[in-house]
């Protein structure tokens, strides 16, 4: 997918939104494809429309044509564009399927780590696997509104909610998934850029929805292991797990 790599960075290049994960460029490529496909239609339709308005203005002594649109010769002006729209739709559907399958359906196996993301009114709780890289062990690190991940590693996440619907969204990763109370929804991401980025709650969740902001820290391996070491719970450090 050399094309995706070259073209998919357009929005990053113009400074609108960074590309921060392994699949962000796929989404941006799809968006650009749709932009070009519908842009062609849009400009064509608006130009013809404007041209007709200018060209067929009322002139004294001139009567409009009588065309009822049942003549085949006239009807094809509708039929052909309409078939072309269908063809463009098929193209968009195919690329959209590929992107959708990659991100939401084909879960890559053997993740480097599994994290848990829990939404509640109005904060994010992140459960990191800690030093043993296993989730739900005593050395897990819990943080609020701050997710620490290592750049380039493949993560699975388990998304949960305690009270109402929330939506876990990290724009630079192009990731978004609603959190539903009573369910644990699995997904994945692979950060590719080191830095600090916004975590949003994208589903209205009550009074504090507007302040339900988190940050994700994408760190290089050394920084990340230093962070794990510094934050491993004391209780675990004293009593090693059996």
């Amino acid at each position, binding site marked *: 997918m050399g094309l995706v790599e070259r073209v998919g960075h357009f*929005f990053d290049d113009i400074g*609108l*939104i960074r590309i921060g994960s392994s699949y962000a460029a796929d*989404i941006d490529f*799809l*968006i650009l494809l*749709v932009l070009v496909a519908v*842009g062609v239609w*849009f400009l064509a339709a608006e130009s*013809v*429309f404007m041209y*007709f*308005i200018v060209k*067929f*203005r*009322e002139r004294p002594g001139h009567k*409009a*044509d*009588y*065309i*009822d*649109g049942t003549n085949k010769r*006239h*009807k094809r002006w*509708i039929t052909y*564009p*309409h078939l072309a*729209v269908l063809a463009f*739709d098929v193209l*968009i559907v195919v690329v*959209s*399927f*590929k*992107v*959708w399958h990659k991100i*939401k359906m084909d879960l890559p196996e053997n993740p480097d780590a599994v994290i848990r993301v829990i939404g509640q009114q109005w904060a994010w709780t992140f459960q990191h696997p800690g030093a043993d890289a296993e989730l739900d062990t005593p050395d897990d690190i819990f943080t609020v509104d701050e997710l620490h991940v290592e750049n380039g590693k493949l993560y699975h996440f388990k998304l949960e909610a305690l*009270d*109402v*619907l929330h*939506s876990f*969204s990290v*724009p630079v990763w*192009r*990731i*978004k998934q*609603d*959190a*539903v*109370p*009573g*369910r644990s929804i699995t997904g994945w991401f692979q950060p590719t850029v080191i830095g*600090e980025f*916004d975590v*949003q709650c*994208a589903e*209205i969740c*009550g*009074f504090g929805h*507007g302040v339900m*902001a988190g940050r994700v820290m994408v760190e290089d391996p050394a920084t990340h292991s230093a962070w794990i070491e510094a934050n491993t719970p004391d209780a675990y450090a004293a009593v090693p797990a059996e």
Partner: protein
Amino acid sequence: MAEPAVAVMAHHEEEDHAHHGPEGWLKYLWSTDHKVIAMQYMFTGMFMALIGGFMAYVFRMQLAFPGINVPGFGMVSPGEYNALVTNHGTLMIFWVAMPVLLAAFGNYLIPLMVGADDMVFPKINRLSFQIFFLSTIVILASLVVEGGGFAGAWTAYPPLSANETYNLTPLGSTLWVVGVGLEFVAFLLGGINFITTLMNSRAPGMRAFDVPIVVWMIVVASILFMLSVGPLLAGAIMLIFDQTLGTGFFDPATGGDPILWQHLFWFFGHPEVYVVLLPAIGVVAEIITTFARKKLFGYRIVIFTIVATGVLSFFVWAHHQFIAGIDPRMANIFTVTTLLISVPIAEMCFVYIATLYGGSIRLTTPMLWALAFIAEFLIGGVTGIFLGAAGADIYFHDTYFVLAHFHYTFFPIAIIGTFAAFSYWFPKMFGKMMDERLGKWHFWLTIIPFNFIFIPLFVLGMGGQHRRIYNYAHFPELAIPWFQNMRIVATVSLLVMLAAQLIFFYNCYKSWRRGQKAPRNPWRANSLEWTTESPPPHGNWRPDELPVVYRGPYEYSVPDRDDDYWPQSEPDGRGAR
């Protein structure tokens, strides 16, 4: 043959009103005249539009200048902000778009355009408005009760909407659901009338394909509404039970499922888009044919297209839920159906553009609005493709891109469509011509700012700005200066656009008081409503003037005729059909 019978009926009703009807203003409270009910729907809708517009002003001010003391409102708290955006959406769709486009113009136009003296069930029609008015009071009350108005977005997703410990608005959220439920009942009653009147009360000689497009559109919209609203009405009652009786239909802790509500809501919610879109599209068909002096390009294509759109609209609802936690395989199916719906809608646009070809276009105020509808709705249409493609929706879902997209559909529908219809039928409704110069000022000062409100919001959405956030300062990536400048551009444009509406109200008042008297058929149009007086009398036509139909409604510029129009009711010497 049917003529005298109808005439006698109309005559009886007039007598009935003269002798037994209530006096004074009560006359309007209980009037069963479809025109009076239409006006009541229209003025209620316009009043609610002012409230909805005021809400937009308040929250846009907060977004552009966070923490400002908004003139006329005060400081906006996060809870108030959420309540404002929730009720702005609710009012604009259920109390503005539906009453004005569907109920007001449906009521006003259907009997006049099919040549009937009134609706088939005038008393049901009255009951419909009475319930609608009650729903208006309930929804307005929900804004001012203790705890404030409902603040869980117009989609009212549970568990937030179902549980007062989560939404903190125990009274507001229940009244909100009750108000919306009552409003649905009102429109169900109205829909019965629209459908039966078209079926049973057409003038002699009027066949199915002689009916003006706008009437078909309103009737198809009513059918869509009736078929789709049932599940949501059931859902609304379940939601009220969850809120007040402690049931758990949508509560996972007691075995319910919050996603169920989303299916019930959007199974209604997506056809609802077409419920309000179709009347507007119909209005545009009437106006462009009249002012281009052209026959509609492919009358039957349009009819079949709306039926196709209507059927398809029942199979696209889950595109609102791609990332809501539904089975991801479902997204594939709904991506296909959603993109398929672009075919009939694109076809409709092509038909309208083709209608202009070879025309003799007069850019009157109604024509400007109708053309603007096509130009702007195209933007709303094409941006929908981005969201219908599930892969792209992962990113766009719940961003300002979605918001800008549906405002580019709903604004042309509810605002541009309404102004088009209002300025086109104003001479018929009030018997006066509207001031063209003021009308054009109003047009340009509405259309230009409208684009400057929502184009920046597309860019912000592309930049990752998510919705329903009262202050973006908490999100460092969204708090950058040029994003804030875009928010200010949008807000200032909104202020200009809102101020421009004063021109409209002044124009209405001035034209109504001192406007030039309107003749019966000021636009030289073909359909039946132009054959009666302006405004039409009670019973719509004088008993001796009841129309008989000889041809379809779009016979403009027929070759070998001196006039460039040919009214539906003008005898052609070949006798009645």
